[in-house]
């Protein structure tokens, strides 16, 4: 999207800076930022998928698959390494995406969205009934380690998780910007504009959607692993539709123009939620709703439009983007 705006090396420097910034943050913001980074990762997957014109309302499916996969493997074989857990989560999500992706890629628009939602609720229903997995109460896992190091000090443990999640999300963001500029990324945009024409060009639209879907599933699985590591507890709520809806909200808040916006939007949402909960415990949902409405009304192209201005009028696909984005996301 951002044609030649930032060199990948600059982006890597930004990620490193964000990670080191964690050293001076107060402790409570570390775990909040970890959750925000994990939510940003899954929302990034939704943004990637939405570039094909399809919005998944059921990312909770892969989020839960990643979370439960990691939790079960951690409890069975004692895998506590944070990076290993992240990889396991991503693989679990990816494998499930590999199975579901080709089937679901044949649908589009509202049917696509509803099918993803339905599948995630099937998993939710199955999890609630499985008393071996703790049913609706879920179960706990131990705290993660990193490369054999066990962190006893709460602040160090929080910083470790923060660092791993920020680096992962950052690298995923860099990968996403590279993807957006690649042939596949540009073909994705074209699928949204006119998938028939894409087929005539000799590109399989189904294939493009499937690949994007699997990427989104991998991100969601890794995100589920981070959510699990941050809270050490998993329950079927991971697969519930409101959880998936929240990720779509983060994507809507962020808009399309910037990968960094996804992280900012996710962090802003967590901050607003936390402070409204503290100061207005009876009406925090209202505050959250007003915040979302405000962003949608005043920044229809998302938080990203704050720093990415409309300077790209010359490039045609980009100019066509905003209207289509709204169509795609406001399903």
């Amino acid at each position, binding site marked *: 999207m951002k044609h030649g705006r930032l060199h990948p090396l600059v982006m890597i420097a930004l990620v490193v800076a964000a990670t080191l910034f964690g050293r001076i943050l*107060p*402790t*409570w*913001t570390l*775990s*909040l930022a970890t*959750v925000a980074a994990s939510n940003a990762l899954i929302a990034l997957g939704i943004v990637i998928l939405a570039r094909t014109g399809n919005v998944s309302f059921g990312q909770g499916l892969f989020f839960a698959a990643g979370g439960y996969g990691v939790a079960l493997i951690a409890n069975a074989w004692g895998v506590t390494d944070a990076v290993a857990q992240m990889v396991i989560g991503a693989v679990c999500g990816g494998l499930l995406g590999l199975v579901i992706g080709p089937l679901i890629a044949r649908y589009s628009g509202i049917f696509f969205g509803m099918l993803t939602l339905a599948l995630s609720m099937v998993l939710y229903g199955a999890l*609630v*009934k499985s*008393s071996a997995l*703790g*049913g*609706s*109460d*879920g*179960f*706990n896992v131990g*705290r993660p380690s990193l490369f054999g190091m066990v962190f006893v000090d*709460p602040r160090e*443990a929080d910083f470790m998780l923060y660092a791993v999640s920020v680096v992962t999300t950052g690298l995923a963001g860099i990968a996403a910007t590279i993807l957006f500029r690649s042939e596949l990324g540009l073909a994705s945009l074209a699928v949204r504009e006119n998938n028939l024409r894409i087929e005539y060009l000799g590109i399989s639209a189904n294939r493009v959607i499937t690949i994007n879907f699997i990427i989104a599933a991998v991100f969601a699985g890794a995100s589920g692993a981070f*959510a699990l590591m*941050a*809270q*050490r*507890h998993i*329950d079927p*709520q991971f697969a*519930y539709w409101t*959880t998936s809806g929240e990720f779509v909200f983060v994507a809507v808040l962020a808009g399309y123009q910037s990968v960094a916006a996804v992280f900012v939007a996710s962090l802003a949402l*967590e*901050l*607003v*939620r*936390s*402070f409204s*909960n*503290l100061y207005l*415990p*009876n009406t*925090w*949902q209202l505050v959250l709703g007003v915040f979302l409405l*405000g962003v949608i009304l*005043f*920044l229809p192209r998302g*938080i990203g*439009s*704050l720093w990415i201005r409309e300077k790209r009028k010359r490039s045609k696909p980009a100019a066509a983007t905003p209207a289509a984005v709204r169509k795609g996301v406001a399903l």
Partner: protein
Amino acid sequence: MDRFSRINRSAVFLSVVTATALALVTPASAEDTFKLGIVTFLSGPAADSFGVPARNGGQFVIDQLNKGAVPSPYEKVGFGGMKIEPVIIDENGGATKQVQELRNLYQRDNVDAVLGYIGSGDCLAVAPIAEELKKMLVLMDCGTPRIFEEAKYNYVFRTAAHATMDNVGLIRYMKAKNVKMDTLSAINQDYAWGQDSRADFVAAAGQLYPNVKLQTDLLPKFGAGQYGTEISALVGAGSDVVYSSLWGGDLQAFILQAAPRGLPKRSQLVFSAADHVLPPLGDKMPDGTIIGARGAYGLMSQKSPLNDWFFKGYEAVNGVYPVQAAYRIAQSIFGLKAAVEKAMAKNGGKKPSTDELVAAMTGLEWQSPGGLIQMRLADGHQAIQPIAISRTKYNPDLKRVDLVDIQYFPAECVNPPPGVKSLDWIKGGMQGAKCN
């Protein structure tokens, strides 16, 4: 568009600045106050039944403690002379949010202890976090016995008995009152509370009624609201007893739909946690229903100066008498108060550190409006308490459902002894129960 975006930008900057400013205001930890985080449902399905009564009960007790207006043995102001400063958080929003908010309470708001939690899933999720942060956490309600049966905690306490007591109490009551139960049907919500309650009740029934036959066993989903089909099945089965652990709106809907179809006349209804629906249901509650309240609470509470003060005071402030959740938070707060004052007596009157507080709370016993609470299980971290079971009878003069035929069971009669898992204890014949 440009003008708009400028306004937007300044608006966003303003909010970012405000958020940062709020973030940087770290409240000074004062020596003369005790900052207490309170977590309870203020929205969602459990708010009306449990969350808001708990909030009101907590607010009432804290106000009275801060005024020094509570009868003996709690006449001291606040916690050992320190004013209590509550920070109330909504429990709604799932376990992920609870874990985050618990961290915020400890690390950002610097509370001295956190007290609350009604949902079992929330309790399971927050307990290991408090343990890791080495901060005091007092769980006031939540049903599941798994918290201390699957893990060991030093900084976590639960000041109420778990759900095993509710079902063992019901069966003991039915046996004592010679309720016939050759056949049994059950209707419970399809989530952990419903599934666990059902398992406990059926297991306990198997002990005291060895010939009982389980007929219709229904698990509608949580929040179903419509029970037409289920009631048809229950009426069709015509069992001697219909057991349910439904609560709140689900229980009200079930009773309202079951009564006109004659289910209460055909079968003896037995509800494990139904006292909180009595005020809203009024004369719609069928007479003779056997109910529990998860303790000796509300209209089943035993007379004592402390209980009279609580019952009347709460009723005067809130316009309705206190039910289980209000009692549970009250016993939690009194327990914490007793622990703080015990620790202060030991350290010479200073504000106790978390470790001193934990040491004082472990194995503690204290009086509450609902009777004596004893931290007996899980190495002194899990409470046991007495329970009352009774039958309903509508009182047209007072326009409220009265509870008659009340029977009390001592804590050690209905709770497992230390070191035994509750379901194993029931299935093993409830060894070591002291019922007199």
